[in-house]
């Protein structure tokens, strides 16, 4: 066992000396997603932008076309609001979880 994997685990108020797994050490903290930022759910290319900064949008309104996996996926407004910022441009290649648009009230 490698020394750097040594650690402690507490279960029901009792401390146990143990070894961690690499996966456990490298785990990312969970971020509860920010409801005001729309992110890419899949890597792809921006093929259309229907809104600009300051536009008022209603829930379900199409905002972008994100082409991925041979499909022109439409990204819809998750709620009513105003476009605070359009972060991407046409033909931008985006990674998974990359922010695309910011919405505000």
């Amino acid at each position: 066992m490698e020394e750097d994997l040594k650690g402690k685990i507490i279960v029901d108020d009792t401390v146990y000396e143990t070894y961690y797994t690499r996966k456990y050490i490298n785990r990312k903290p969970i971020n509860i997603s920010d409801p005001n930022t729309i992110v890419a759910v899949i890597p792809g290319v921006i093929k259309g932008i229907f809104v600009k900064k300051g536009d008022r949008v209603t829930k379900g309104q199409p905002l972008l076309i994100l082409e991925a996996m041979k499909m022109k996926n439409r990204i819809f407004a998750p709620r009513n609001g105003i476009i605070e910022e359009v972060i991407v441009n046409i033909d931008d290649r985006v990674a998974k979880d990359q922010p695309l648009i910011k919405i505000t009230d």
Partner: protein
Amino acid sequence: MSLKQKISDFFNRKKEIVEKTEIEAQSKQSKYGKMTARQRIEALLDPGTFHEYDLFVEHTTDEFGMDKKFLPRDGVITGTGEIMGYPVCIYAQDFTVAGGSLGLAHARKITKIMDHAMNLGIPLIGINDSGGARIQEGVNSLAGYGEIFYRNTRASGVIPQISVILGPCAGGAVYSPALTDFVFVVDKVSKMFITGPEVIKTVLGEEISMEDLGGARVQAEISGNAHFFAESEFECFEQIKKLVTFISWNNRKKPEPMLPAQPLEGRTITEILPNDNTEPYDVRDIIKAIADKSDFFEVQEYWAKNIVIGFIRMNGETVGVVANQPLVLAGVLDVDSSDKGARFIRFCDAFNIPLLTLVDLPGYLPGVDQEYAGVIRHGAKILYAYSEATVLKMTVIMRKAYGGGYIAMCSRHLGADFVFAWPTAEIAVMGPEGAANIIFKKEIESAPNPEEMRKIKVQEYTDKFANPFKAAANGYIDGVIIPDETREQILHCLLIGKNKKVENPEKKHGIPPF
């Protein structure tokens, strides 16, 4: 005591438990906007059909001052009744009695009603509202949980098991619902987790609210533990009633048929389907265009939305539908959607419900995170589930059916009884772009204008292979049909396939990749 006195003594004893505890329970539960166990059972079952058992059961613990505590019904109501005329066994934990905590007597009441459900071959419904193990009862309480889990597993695939989470359900207690077929949650009422926010904070330093950790929305959208999400307890009960009418009572029966009905007037499939094969559409519109009354009862509507599963009726008979959803993630198969699809297929197979598969997917989702998450082993679940299923299997390839996705989505090769394709179908090893880049690599690279040559070759491949006729020429599909003829064709298959009998080789059980 005279006969009259004995009867009146009985009434007094009953009143003490039924009426007195109900009044207390109502004042306690209503503070949290929750119904009492008794009210829940009455709201769910047909009026006047509930028959309660084990009213006078008491705990036998005398440690930690428990001998002085009287816990009416030991905190759980059990009995039988009817939902829309269908017989069911039911139990409901009472949070107002020692926090709905599970002691041995409490557990024995539950296991008794579970045994009833198994022996009688009728669905079991469990309403969970409990703080967890009754610590004063020590290992007896754990024994109680274990005996419930054991029965959940034994009953799996024999009778439908439904769990309703209407309060906290924490620690080991969550494993009973997890072993059952359908889990119902209600917004702001249901909470499920293995370790609560307090423990997570002290151990890991991560701060999270109970709602964000294990609330109804989390279970319905993120973890996939829940199958149905409702805004209120009443809406939840309506969902349960609807589900019960769609499924069979046990694995020896078929679901009860309803009166045949036509789909509602609306857009035809050819009107729903976009002209361009890269344009998405909502596959649920297609399902509704095929279903009786256009009624589609969707399961796990908010989780892994790239696959759509649920029940419809066709000429009154229940059919389980599995469909790729081009609207979300292009309809790809990934870790979660494979898991979701596979479990539903196995439910339908266990309870004699024919399967209709609607195919439109570019394949499995590429990505490091998917590979690390084990897309190989999760993706294999859907292959396993389809191959193992012996119910009538019907497949319609609507548009894309590429590569592993084509095989996985109930192809002929996995034992589909009927496979049809629309003229818009594209059945190939991969999409035209990818395929042309590989097959014509040399021609493209050595051409004076590679980009121009690439376009020509992509078109060449598209014309040749991006259609259903190669697969039809090999007999892998039974026919090419016009989209608007789909309902009629499937109705015919259901009629012809009514007495299908195929048996898996004799074995103790398979070893699916879960």
